[in-house]
């Protein structure tokens, strides 16, 4: 690849949009050509400026009231559900019967633990089966009470959430007792590739989903280094060019 070819591909190379062969050729050219390396460096600096500018803008956005809005929405939703529960004798969807029942049971039991009785049922329950959705009833009755009495409810919700989280995590999503597995030379689609120009020290950040994340690279002076990612094979290549300049170059194609 010569400079004219490289200049045409530099933008796509910088964005990691070239296919594997072109990415490799461009990376190798950039490591050997000062002018093209400088072009890539200019793009890097431009990107850094853009990132800094965007970060500045984002940091000025006030997100402090987001949770207040969420909490308010949750509160009104719970109150609505409670009202529907009292009216709705028998029309329940499946989602209400699982997590909500557990959360309500926890909050009710917490109320019992601290010496408060759960609210007594009244005639307007109209024969509604409490076990189907006690959450709505509990929450709806608690809403108008004083702020100090919302503590048991919050504690119950925290207890329920923690227990549910513990059960979910403890159920064992992580593999347990797997036999040691030697890594296979396999491939799967991953994050987009991104070639890095050579420098004395490089620090990179790759997408979290990537199978290979290069944190840093150091190499001794006097050598050139190219690095690129092959998403098709989940491979990152670090190519140290310590060839003798007088030695014959490898063929360009098999």
């Amino acid at each position, binding site marked *: 690849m010569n400079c004219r070819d490289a200049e045409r591909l530099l933008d796509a190379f910088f964005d990691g949009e070239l296919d594997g062969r072109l990415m*490799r050729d461009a990376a190798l050219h950039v490591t050997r050509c000062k002018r093209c390396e400088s072009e890539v460096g200019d793009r890097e600096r431009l990107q850094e400026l853009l990132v800094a500018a965007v970060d500045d803008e984002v940091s000025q956005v006030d997100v402090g009231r987001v949770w207040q809005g969420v909490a308010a929405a949750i509160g009104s939703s719970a109150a609505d559900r409670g009202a529907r529960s009292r009216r709705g004798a028998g029309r329940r969807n499946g989602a209400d019967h699982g997590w909500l029942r557990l959360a309500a049971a926890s909050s009710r039991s917490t109320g019992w633990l601290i010496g408060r009785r759960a609210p007594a049922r009244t005639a307007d329950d109209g024969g509604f089966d409490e076990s189907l959705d006690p959450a709505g009833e509990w929450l709806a009755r608690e809403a108008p009470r004083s702020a100090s009495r919302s503590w048991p409810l919050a504690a119950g919700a925290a*207890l329920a959430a923690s227990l549910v989280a513990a059960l979910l995590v403890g159920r064992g999503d992580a593999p347990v007792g797997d036999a040691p597995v030697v890594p296979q*030379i396999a*491939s*799967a689609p991953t994050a987009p590739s991104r070639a890095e120009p050579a420098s004395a020290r490089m620090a990179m950040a790759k997408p979290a989903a990537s199978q290979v994340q290069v944190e840093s690279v150091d190499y001794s002076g006097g050598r050139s280094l190219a690095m690129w990612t092959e998403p098709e094979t*989940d491979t990152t290549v670090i*190519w140290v060019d310590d060839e003798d300049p007088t030695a014959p170059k490898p063929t360009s194609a098999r």
Partner: protein
Amino acid sequence: MKPAAAGCRRFFRERSVAVASAASSLVALVALVAVVPVEAAERVIVQVVTVFATNTGEHFDSQLAAMRRQLDKLPHYRSYQLMSRQSRDVSRGDPVDVEIPGGRILRIVPKSVGDDRVLLNVLLRQDSRAVVRTDVTLGPTGTVLVGGPRHGDGVLIIWIGAQPVSTAP
């Protein structure tokens, strides 16, 4: 009932509610910690495959068939020969030294081990000089290839992979 006494009673009742709430949260946290299995893999299987690539002859070692797709993405050579294949089971922090032809030593140190990811410190030395050093995190199917060191009339390509070993019973 005196107003002050009523106030005190209400104060202590509210305090007891708060204390009970905190206690229930503590119980929940303890339950969470007790239920979640502590499974930190501390051992890693590190695999290193060294390949000799040259333009002399036309030969592709059949033992490298599984690596063919990866090798096709590298600067092309006419001949590929497997030189060594090593697999080591090591603890986190313990170095793995692999001899590479040409007086080179590849030292790999697993610096941290997650459920399915391993952070490796890789150092390739030639004689007393460090050729390249990198910190790289590998996922379950991720590999890193270090290529280019000259050997004879060709170059060496070093394939590195790692996999955490689950230690849970």
